[in-house]
């Protein structure tokens, strides 16, 4: 068996661009897929896709999916799944509507209570999964039914709204231009430029670190090209946003959450332990990791994010409907798997889940603009999900 290690070493030395691309196909594939899909819809919708108003719309439409995908990724990396998020999202939206519209509670108090309710819901489900070892599929399937019913009951089958402006601002508000120019929105541009610089700086730092440790390096041309595309795309989107109404509040929320969760999963003890839990729960437990508590916390976090998504969703529609969130869990789970997570746990990245959600979002949006019926949309989305997973498995077999 000793020959495997030395073979790998020899292989790494002689490996060229093509081979590097082969082994990292998944990382590039996702990015290129998103770009290709955007280019395709940009072409077939005669440029409607990337109009400033539509880009803004894209962010607003997908914000709650992305917020929930962050939590779902962590749940799935931990080796579980949560089918209840759509229903919980709808329920929390209904709760907010009842609190504000019917009980007249202040917006701030309502938001805190709703987030608290989400945490409790997550804890209630996580308890059975983590400490009683009941399969998460079953517990959260039950949760899905329970909270669907609970939304109906809470709203008595009616839509409840509208919300005060301060609540709507959660979703449809925009960051005002601090520089007072407004068209283009200079604040948005400034934030965009800073973000792009931060991305480039972190990329360079990681590259320097890799080099210091002699890890197989991304060819310089690849690095430059990849970062140029990312930077270009970011700047392009930001420019478009700035010529419309600037930065949507929810984009800031999403951005901050994405950074926080990416940091949490990649750089902290907690994150590392969640990956170990999903990768090999028995080994993690024998390494002194409190695997039950950890699994429990992934559900608590999921409840919190589902509640936040519920608030954003209700604020966007400006009303809470009993049907809100139906089937949404499937979009969220699809986004996570398109983003490269593994059903068996232990594998997946926050950034992947976010890109996966955007791929789904752009397809939804593009097909709607084209006037493709919901029937075809569903079929196409299903096939894309299957293709993404087949691509993953194929890549793995080729390497294995």
């Amino acid at each position: 068996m000793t020959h495997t290690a030395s073979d790998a070493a020899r292989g790494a030395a002689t490996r060229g661009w093509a081979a590097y691309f082969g082994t990292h196909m998944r990382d590039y594939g996702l990015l290129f897929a998103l770009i290709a899909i955007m280019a395709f819809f940009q072409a077939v919708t005669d440029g409607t896709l990337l109009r400033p108003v539509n880009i803004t719309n894209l962010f607003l439409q997908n914000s709650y999916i992305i917020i929930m995908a962050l939590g779902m990724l962590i749940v799935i990396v931990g080796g579980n799944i949560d089918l209840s998020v759509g229903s919980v999202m709808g329920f929390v939206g209904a709760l907010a509507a009842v609190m504000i519209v019917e009980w007249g509670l202040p917006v701030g108090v309502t938001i805190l209570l709703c987030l608290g309710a989400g945490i409790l819901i997550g804890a209630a489900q996580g308890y059975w999964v983590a400490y009683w070892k009941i399969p998460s599929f079953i517990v959260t399937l039950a949760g899905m039914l329970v909270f669907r019913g609970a939304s109906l009951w809470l709203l008595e089958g009616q839509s409840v709204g509208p919300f005060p402006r301060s609540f709507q601002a959660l979703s449809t508000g925009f960051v005002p231009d601090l520089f007072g120019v407004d068209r283009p929105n200079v604040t948005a541009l400034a934030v965009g430029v800073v973000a792009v610089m931060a991305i480039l700086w972190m990329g360079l730092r990681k590259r320097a670190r890799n080099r210091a440790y002699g890890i197989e390096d991304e060819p310089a041309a690849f690095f430059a090209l990849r970062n140029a595309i990312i930077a270009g795309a970011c700047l392009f989107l930001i420019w478009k946003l700035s010529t419309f109404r600037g930065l949507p509040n929810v984009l800031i929320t999403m951005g901050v959450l994405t950074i926080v969760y990416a940091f949490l999963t990649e750089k902290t003890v907690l994150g590392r332990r969640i990956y170990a839990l999903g990768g090999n729960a028995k080994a993690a437990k024998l390494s002194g990791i409190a695997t039950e508590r950890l699994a429990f916390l992934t559900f608590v976090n999921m409840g919190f994010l589902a509640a936040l998504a519920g608030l954003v969703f209700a604020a966007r529609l400006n009303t809470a409907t009993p049907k809100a969130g139906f089937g949404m869990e499937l979009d969220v789970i699809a986004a996570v798997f398109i983003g490269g997570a593994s059903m068996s746990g232990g594998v997946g990245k926050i950034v992947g889940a976010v890109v996966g959600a955007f791929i789904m979002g752009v397809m939804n949006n593009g097909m709607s603009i084209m006037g493709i019926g919901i029937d075809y949309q569903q079929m196409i989305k299903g096939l894309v999900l299957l293709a993404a997973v087949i691509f993953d498995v194929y890549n793995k077999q080729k390497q294995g």
Partner: protein
Amino acid sequence: MATLLEMRGITKTFPGVRALDDVTFSVREGEIHALVGENGAGKSTLMKVLSGVYPHGTYEGDIVYDGEVMAFGGIADSERRGIIIIHQELALVPLLSIAENIFLGNERATAGVISWQETNARAQELLRKVGLREAPQTQVDRIGVGKQQLVEIAKALSKDVRLLILDEPTAALSESDSQALLDLILELKAQGVTSIIISHKLNEVRRVADSITVLRDGATVATRDARTEPVTEDRIVRDMVGRSMENRYPARTRRAGDVLFEVRNWNVTHPDHAERQVVRDVSLHVRRGEVVGIAGLMGAGRTELAMSVFGRSYGRNITGTVAVGGRTVDTSSVARAIGAGLAYVTEDRKELGLVLEESVQKNVTLANLPKVATGGVLRQEDETRVAEDYRRAMNIRTPSVFQQVMNLSGGNQQKVVLSKWLFAGPEVLILDEPTRGIDVGAKFEIYNIINDLSKDGKGVLMISSEMPELLGMCDRIYVMNEGAFVGELTAAEASQERIMSLIVTD
């Protein structure tokens, strides 16, 4: 009597290991032939070659069965010729009925539609033959292990068995169940069924076997005919273990200090069957700088003892006390056991020791992440430095510490597991089969690491099924059998014969 089976010059290699080396093995028609040897001697491998688990072409040598050279491509081929193997771990589906299990894969059906009348009637018949009075519709998990073993034999009979291979059939059985099983094998012999029986229990071998073949280190040592010459247990034991001990074990200056680790009156029952006591009133101690072994056969309860001590990771109704450095410590969770200075290096590194899809680095730091973190945030430079240090110190052969551990060889994976536990900073290390499945060179490196630990004043408790390894490495050896310690030998007193006789005469 005619020769039914002859295996000639069988050689089987796995990467880095020669499991069988020019083995010759022949069985006469109608006899019961016992195959004995230490764990790892190659008995099971030989039987897997015979039954087609390792298909023709993956080994060298010839199998001559019933006068013809055989080229089995799989189990189905050997079964068609009436060669049926019953593995040590029973292959029954617990939630199906006895009858369904007997005809699994061989269903009594017409055009895919099962005839339950025929299934149950034929099952009934077969059950009578093996002396079972259970209804064929009884679910298999409702009957005891002994009866399940009989169901396996009924299943073999349903396939018109000519040569029945039983791999340690009585290992998990009680005394009376074992007797019943051996009687049945004798009865089958009277009906003309030839049997090969692999067993560690030499008294049973003596009772039923007509011939005895001893394997050692993948080679045939001797075949003795029990009908023409009396074969004593002593004779068999000497055949089994009589090997030259070269310098396979690095020398160490032995210097035992104060008592460091002590377990008193430890009792554990099986997690699912509260009436089965897996560890019985075990007491042991390890001094600073001492390497103490626990010898015993598979299933003696050694791993269960170790895992129950380490954070109650096995069993229930655990009683007894653990002390480290003279102070009684709480080891009721893995985190507490680690905190008390214990480390347990598992026998099953892939299932219980490693996160295979993660890198070497992430595995090394897993048991002590706070040491490379500030306020819960990992210091990645430090983490990499730690992993690099262990890579050098333990000579882990990997292109980089960022390599996934699943791409490493067994020996290097084992070094990663050891690194993980050394990084946790323990005082006492429990090593469970630390050299299982790794090649000779890597074994030597692991022995050196163990010696270094002892030099640093750590206590090492080592479980091993390879007796030479225990004799070569340990200052003291406890012998365990059926959940209890049945003897304690110092390095000077210990020999393979003494350990073996403590086990078989218990």
